[in-house]
């Protein structure tokens, strides 16, 4: 166990996630146990307040995870970046063998939590616009997956923090330097050697298509119900393609060496992290618009739904455009 300021902070935030997550799960299940009228009126609002705290803790825990991993880099002489930290325990026979899959899990649950939290929040905004809080049952049901994933995430983070790491050395990693006869390995390209211009072309075409689609909807030329499924499908395809682009194209170009490690961008080209965040925001915003269109549509929300969906798509357009602009400028300077 390595204790530093980030580890303590991550443990604290994880504890909050666990506590709020368990409370949210309990109250979600316990809706039948309401005895008095005042409980009936107050409990949903207590639950909503808890949910806001949970969403805040989930949101804070995402960048905190990478700050924690970055703070662990100096703990091993061979590790040079976060990728090296993610390799600790690989091939180990002790309890540290669980470290790599725990990290993979939390790196998946963190964005999932942000998406689930955002989805819940947009439903909450739609519910606020109604007179009879008609979406409240859906809001309460939506808290269950959020609570469950929060608990899973916090347990994984707590396990990662608690498992001993110092006594286990690296087997290999792209950012390690056991150079005797170079057990350090260059991080492998997932697609093999080459510039892969097709990947850039497909991604640019896809993102341009998404931007044009969003623009068409928010300018009111097409009903969002007709085009939203296509936008969601496009955003779903763009996510893994964007990740592949980040590893295969962006990392080596921005780092100015054949190094396929996006973690290095955090320290060496920090502004590119904003480009990644904007791209994720673009995809998530389209997804949130889809959630709102699917689960927020009731009689009372008919009037506010187009405005809310339009706002989310506008945010998505900003995210995609910002990401594209940032990477185009970065590439032209590199």
């Amino acid at each position, binding site marked *: 166990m390595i204790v530093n300021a980030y580890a303590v902070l991550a443990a604290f935030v994880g504890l909050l996630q666990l506590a709020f997550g368990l409370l949210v799960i309990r109250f979600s299940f316990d809706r039948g146990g309401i005895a008095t009228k005042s409980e009936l009126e107050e409990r949903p609002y207590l639950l909503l307040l808890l949910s806001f705290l949970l969403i805040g803790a989930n949101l804070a825990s995402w960048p905190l995870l990478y700050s924690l991993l970055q703070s662990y880099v100096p703990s091993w002489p061979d590790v040079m970046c976060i990728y090296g930290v993610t390799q600790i325990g690989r091939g180990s026979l002790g309890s540290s063998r669980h470290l790599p899959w725990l990290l993979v899990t939390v790196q998946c649950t963190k964005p999932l939590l942000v998406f689930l939290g955002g989805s819940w929040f947009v439903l909450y905004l739609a519910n606020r616009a109604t007179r009879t809080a008609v979406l409240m049952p859906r809001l309460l049901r939506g808290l269950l997956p959020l609570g469950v994933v929060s608990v899973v995430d916090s347990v994984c983070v707590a396990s990662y923090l608690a498992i001993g790491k110092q006594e286990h050395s690296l087997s290999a990693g792209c950012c390690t330097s056991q*150079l005797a006869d170079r057990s350090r390995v260059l991080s492998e390209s997932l697609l093999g050697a080459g510039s892969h211009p097709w990947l850039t072309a497909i991604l640019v075409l896809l993102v341009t298509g998404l931007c044009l689609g969003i623009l068409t909807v928010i300018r009111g030329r097409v009903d969002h119900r007709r085009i939203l499924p296509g936008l969601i499908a496009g955003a779903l395809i763009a996510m893994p393609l964007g990740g592949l682009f980040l590893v295969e194209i962006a990392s080596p170009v921005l*780092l100015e060496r054949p190094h396929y490690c996006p973690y290095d961008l955090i320290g060496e080209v920090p*502004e590119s992290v904003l480009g990644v965040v904007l791209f994720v925001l673009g995809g998530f915003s389209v997804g949130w618009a889809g959630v709102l269109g699917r689960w927020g549509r009731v009689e009372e929300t008919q009037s506010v739904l187009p405005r809310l969906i*339009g706002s989310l798509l506008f945010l998505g357009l*900003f995210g995609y455009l910002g990401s594209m602009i940032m990477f185009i400028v970065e590439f032209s300077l590199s």
Partner: protein
Amino acid sequence: MKPPVSWWWAALVGLVAIGTLPVIGHWVRADDRPRCHFDGLVIDSAFRVRIEVESDSGTEFCDVSCARSWLAGHRSASSRILVTDEESGDLMESTDAFFVRSSIITNSITGNRWHVFGTRDRALQHARESRGRLMSESDHPFATHGNVP
């Protein structure tokens, strides 16, 4: 559905600000020092290795081990390898150089233990003094690339 005009203006300002960030980032990080093509470290001229592939202008590495690692991923490249004599600091053909692997680490980050000398006597002296061994023939660092004397 249509966002107000003020949103478009705010977004435009935001996008312009986003577009300037990489420029500021490059300006802040401006560094003309030559860097290793393999791991990005600043190259110490005493241990520099240069690989010229056919008509290529040349790729530079911070030491022998980085050059070997890069070559391992470019096996088909028929190349000319230039290494730096630690004594004089001059670049020389790897076929003319003498390589010693010793206990002396030239770079704490890469952990390189390869040392390059222009003369056999100096290489043997370093090997004696630093618990090293003269590496030749099949032990030559670039043996698998045909760059052996």
